[in-house]
Protein backbone atom coordinates (compact mmCIF):
# COMPACT_ATOMS: atom_id res chain seq x y z
CA UNK A 1 0.00 0.00 0.00
CA UNK A 2 2.75 2.40 1.07
CA UNK A 3 4.81 1.46 -1.96
CA UNK A 4 1.87 2.17 -4.24
CA UNK A 5 1.43 5.51 -2.59
CA UNK A 6 5.14 6.36 -3.08
CA UNK A 7 4.85 5.29 -6.71
CA UNK A 8 1.83 7.53 -7.17
CA UNK A 9 3.61 10.51 -5.58
CA UNK A 10 6.70 9.96 -7.75
CA UNK A 11 4.60 9.67 -10.89
CA UNK A 12 2.71 12.83 -9.98
CA UNK A 13 6.00 14.63 -9.36
CA UNK A 14 7.22 13.60 -12.81
CA UNK A 15 4.18 15.21 -14.43
CA UNK A 16 5.48 18.57 -13.19
CA UNK A 17 8.43 18.38 -15.60
CA UNK A 18 6.53 19.90 -18.50
CA UNK A 19 8.71 23.00 -18.69
CA UNK A 20 12.47 22.90 -18.71
CA UNK A 21 14.47 26.05 -18.06
CA UNK A 22 16.65 27.44 -20.84
CA UNK A 23 20.26 26.39 -20.76
CA UNK A 24 22.83 29.19 -20.40
CA UNK A 25 23.86 28.83 -24.06
CA UNK A 26 20.27 29.09 -25.30
CA UNK A 27 19.75 32.69 -24.19
CA UNK A 28 20.77 34.37 -27.43
CA UNK A 29 17.29 35.70 -28.17
CA UNK A 30 16.84 36.90 -24.60
CA UNK A 31 20.07 38.88 -24.92
CA UNK A 32 18.79 40.77 -27.96
CA UNK A 33 18.42 44.48 -27.58
CA UNK A 34 14.74 44.36 -28.43
CA UNK A 35 14.15 42.08 -25.43
CA UNK A 36 15.44 44.68 -22.96
CA UNK A 37 12.97 46.52 -20.75
CA UNK A 38 14.46 49.78 -22.06
CA UNK A 39 16.12 49.04 -25.40
CA UNK A 40 17.29 52.65 -25.77
CA UNK A 41 18.61 54.05 -22.46
CA UNK A 42 19.03 57.58 -23.83
CA UNK A 43 15.46 57.79 -25.11
CA UNK A 44 14.21 56.31 -21.82
CA UNK A 45 16.11 58.97 -19.88
CA UNK A 46 14.60 61.74 -22.03
CA UNK A 47 11.10 60.30 -21.56
CA UNK A 48 11.66 60.18 -17.84
CA UNK A 49 12.87 63.76 -17.79
CA UNK A 50 9.74 64.92 -19.60
CA UNK A 51 7.63 62.84 -17.23
CA UNK A 52 9.00 64.18 -13.96
CA UNK A 53 9.12 67.73 -15.25
CA UNK A 54 5.46 67.64 -16.23
CA UNK A 55 4.29 65.71 -13.21
CA UNK A 56 6.40 67.71 -10.78
CA UNK A 57 7.74 64.49 -9.35
CA UNK A 58 11.44 65.10 -9.13
CA UNK A 59 13.25 61.81 -8.66
CA UNK A 60 11.56 60.36 -11.67
CA UNK A 61 8.87 57.84 -12.30
CA UNK A 62 8.46 55.01 -9.88
CA UNK A 63 10.17 56.73 -6.98
CA UNK A 64 8.49 58.17 -3.94
CA UNK A 65 8.90 61.81 -3.06
CA UNK A 66 7.86 65.19 -4.40
CA UNK A 67 9.63 68.04 -6.08
CA UNK A 68 9.25 71.62 -7.14
CA UNK A 69 8.78 70.75 -10.79
CA UNK A 70 10.94 73.70 -11.66
CA UNK A 71 13.41 72.05 -14.04
Amino acid sequence: MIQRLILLVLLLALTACSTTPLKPWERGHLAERSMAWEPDPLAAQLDEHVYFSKEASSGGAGTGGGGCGCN
Partner: protein
Amino acid sequence: MMRLLTLLAGLMLAGTAMAVDVGQLAPKLDGPRLMYEQSISLDELKGKVVLVDFWASWCGPCKMSLPEFETLKQELVAAGNPDRFEILAVNLDEQPEDAKRFLRRYPVSYPIISDPEGRLPTRYNVPTMPTSFLIDGDGVVRWVHEGFRNGDTELFRTAILKLLEQ
Protein backbone atom coordinates in the same frame (compact mmCIF):
# COMPACT_ATOMS: atom_id res chain seq x y z
CA MET B 1 8.69 -2.63 -7.43
CA MET B 2 11.79 -1.22 -5.71
CA ARG B 3 13.57 -1.15 -9.06
CA LEU B 4 10.77 0.91 -10.51
CA LEU B 5 10.95 3.34 -7.61
CA THR B 6 14.73 3.67 -8.00
CA LEU B 7 14.30 4.29 -11.71
CA LEU B 8 11.71 6.98 -11.10
CA ALA B 9 13.86 8.67 -8.44
CA GLY B 10 16.79 8.51 -10.86
CA LEU B 11 14.69 10.13 -13.59
CA MET B 12 13.81 12.97 -11.27
CA LEU B 13 17.48 13.60 -10.55
CA ALA B 14 18.44 13.41 -14.23
CA GLY B 15 17.99 17.15 -14.73
CA THR B 16 20.49 18.06 -12.04
CA ALA B 17 23.67 16.71 -13.65
CA MET B 18 26.83 18.47 -12.48
CA ALA B 19 29.29 20.40 -14.65
CA VAL B 20 32.52 18.71 -15.65
CA ASP B 21 34.73 19.05 -12.61
CA VAL B 22 38.44 19.40 -11.87
CA GLY B 23 40.22 16.04 -12.00
CA GLN B 24 37.78 14.52 -14.49
CA LEU B 25 38.72 13.46 -17.98
CA ALA B 26 37.58 16.12 -20.46
CA PRO B 27 34.64 14.87 -22.55
CA LYS B 28 35.12 14.45 -26.28
CA LEU B 29 35.19 17.75 -28.10
CA ASP B 30 35.05 17.93 -31.87
CA GLY B 31 33.22 19.64 -34.69
CA PRO B 32 33.48 21.84 -37.76
CA ARG B 33 35.57 24.97 -37.55
CA LEU B 34 33.73 28.24 -37.73
CA MET B 35 35.98 30.12 -40.13
CA TYR B 36 37.43 27.24 -42.18
CA GLU B 37 36.06 24.29 -44.12
CA GLN B 38 37.63 21.70 -41.85
CA SER B 39 37.01 20.06 -38.52
CA ILE B 40 39.03 19.92 -35.35
CA SER B 41 38.99 17.86 -32.17
CA LEU B 42 40.47 18.09 -28.71
CA ASP B 43 42.22 14.75 -29.31
CA GLU B 44 44.39 16.38 -31.98
CA LEU B 45 45.79 18.67 -29.30
CA LYS B 46 46.74 15.87 -26.92
CA GLY B 47 50.02 16.65 -25.16
CA LYS B 48 49.31 20.38 -25.10
CA VAL B 49 47.76 22.46 -22.35
CA VAL B 50 44.41 23.50 -23.86
CA LEU B 51 42.07 26.24 -22.78
CA VAL B 52 38.57 25.28 -23.91
CA ASP B 53 36.34 28.35 -24.01
CA PHE B 54 32.57 28.28 -24.59
CA TRP B 55 31.32 31.62 -25.93
CA ALA B 56 28.69 33.35 -28.06
CA SER B 57 28.57 36.74 -29.77
CA TRP B 58 25.49 37.81 -27.77
CA CYS B 59 27.24 37.19 -24.44
CA GLY B 60 28.47 40.47 -22.94
CA PRO B 61 31.55 39.24 -21.04
CA CYS B 62 32.70 37.29 -24.14
CA LYS B 63 33.26 40.62 -25.91
CA MET B 64 35.86 41.26 -23.25
CA SER B 65 37.35 37.78 -22.97
CA LEU B 66 38.06 36.99 -26.64
CA PRO B 67 40.53 39.85 -27.26
CA GLU B 68 42.12 39.10 -23.87
CA PHE B 69 42.56 35.41 -24.75
CA GLU B 70 44.08 36.35 -28.10
CA THR B 71 46.62 38.62 -26.41
CA LEU B 72 47.37 35.91 -23.86
CA LYS B 73 47.92 33.33 -26.58
CA GLN B 74 50.27 35.61 -28.52
CA GLU B 75 52.15 36.34 -25.33
CA LEU B 76 52.55 32.65 -24.42
CA VAL B 77 53.61 31.75 -27.95
CA ALA B 78 56.17 34.56 -27.94
CA ALA B 79 57.43 33.27 -24.58
CA GLY B 80 58.37 29.98 -26.25
CA ASN B 81 55.30 27.79 -25.79
CA PRO B 82 53.94 27.41 -29.35
CA ASP B 83 53.79 23.63 -29.16
CA ARG B 84 52.71 23.40 -25.57
CA PHE B 85 49.65 25.63 -25.38
CA GLU B 86 46.50 26.16 -27.44
CA ILE B 87 43.10 27.70 -27.06
CA LEU B 88 40.15 25.80 -28.49
CA ALA B 89 36.97 27.85 -28.47
CA VAL B 90 33.43 26.60 -28.98
CA ASN B 91 31.01 29.11 -30.45
CA LEU B 92 27.36 28.63 -29.50
CA ASP B 93 25.59 31.18 -31.69
CA GLU B 94 22.45 29.74 -33.26
CA GLN B 95 23.35 31.72 -36.38
CA PRO B 96 27.07 31.16 -37.10
CA GLU B 97 26.97 34.32 -39.24
CA ASP B 98 26.57 36.38 -36.02
CA ALA B 99 29.80 34.88 -34.70
CA LYS B 100 31.61 35.56 -37.98
CA ARG B 101 30.53 39.21 -37.86
CA PHE B 102 31.83 39.39 -34.27
CA LEU B 103 35.16 37.87 -35.29
CA ARG B 104 35.62 40.34 -38.13
CA ARG B 105 35.62 42.98 -35.41
CA TYR B 106 37.60 41.02 -32.80
CA PRO B 107 39.75 38.58 -34.82
CA VAL B 108 41.43 35.69 -33.04
CA SER B 109 44.10 33.28 -34.27
CA TYR B 110 43.01 30.20 -32.34
CA PRO B 111 40.63 27.55 -33.70
CA ILE B 112 36.90 27.84 -33.02
CA ILE B 113 34.39 25.01 -33.27
CA SER B 114 30.94 26.05 -34.45
CA ASP B 115 28.20 24.32 -32.47
CA PRO B 116 24.85 26.02 -33.17
CA GLU B 117 22.87 23.05 -31.81
CA GLY B 118 24.56 23.21 -28.40
CA ARG B 119 25.77 19.61 -28.57
CA LEU B 120 29.10 20.24 -26.81
CA PRO B 121 28.02 22.44 -23.86
CA THR B 122 25.50 19.73 -22.98
CA ARG B 123 28.40 17.29 -22.80
CA TYR B 124 30.36 19.66 -20.55
CA ASN B 125 27.21 20.88 -18.78
CA VAL B 126 28.37 24.49 -19.10
CA PRO B 127 26.95 26.34 -16.05
CA THR B 128 27.17 29.89 -17.39
CA MET B 129 28.35 31.96 -20.35
CA PRO B 130 31.27 32.14 -20.87
CA THR B 131 32.87 29.14 -19.16
CA SER B 132 36.46 28.00 -19.67
CA PHE B 133 38.06 24.66 -18.91
CA LEU B 134 41.82 24.32 -18.62
CA ILE B 135 42.87 20.86 -19.76
CA ASP B 136 46.31 19.33 -19.32
CA GLY B 137 48.31 17.26 -21.79
CA ASP B 138 46.66 14.04 -20.59
CA GLY B 139 43.17 15.38 -21.23
CA VAL B 140 42.32 15.97 -17.58
CA VAL B 141 40.37 19.07 -16.54
CA ARG B 142 42.61 21.03 -14.18
CA TRP B 143 40.76 24.33 -13.74
CA VAL B 144 37.27 25.63 -14.47
CA HIS B 145 36.44 29.32 -14.70
CA GLU B 146 32.89 30.67 -14.92
CA GLY B 147 32.16 34.09 -16.44
CA PHE B 148 34.70 36.78 -17.24
CA ARG B 149 35.33 40.00 -15.33
CA ASN B 150 37.94 42.73 -15.43
CA GLY B 151 41.25 41.39 -14.18
CA ASP B 152 40.42 37.74 -14.82
CA THR B 153 43.17 37.53 -17.46
CA GLU B 154 45.69 37.44 -14.64
CA LEU B 155 43.95 34.38 -13.14
CA PHE B 156 44.10 32.65 -16.51
CA ARG B 157 47.78 33.54 -17.02
CA THR B 158 48.69 32.21 -13.57
CA ALA B 159 46.72 28.97 -14.01
CA ILE B 160 48.13 28.31 -17.51
CA LEU B 161 51.74 29.09 -16.55
CA LYS B 162 51.46 26.87 -13.48
CA LEU B 163 50.31 24.00 -15.67
CA LEU B 164 53.01 24.66 -18.30
CA GLU B 165 55.68 24.53 -15.62
CA GLN B 166 54.62 21.07 -14.41
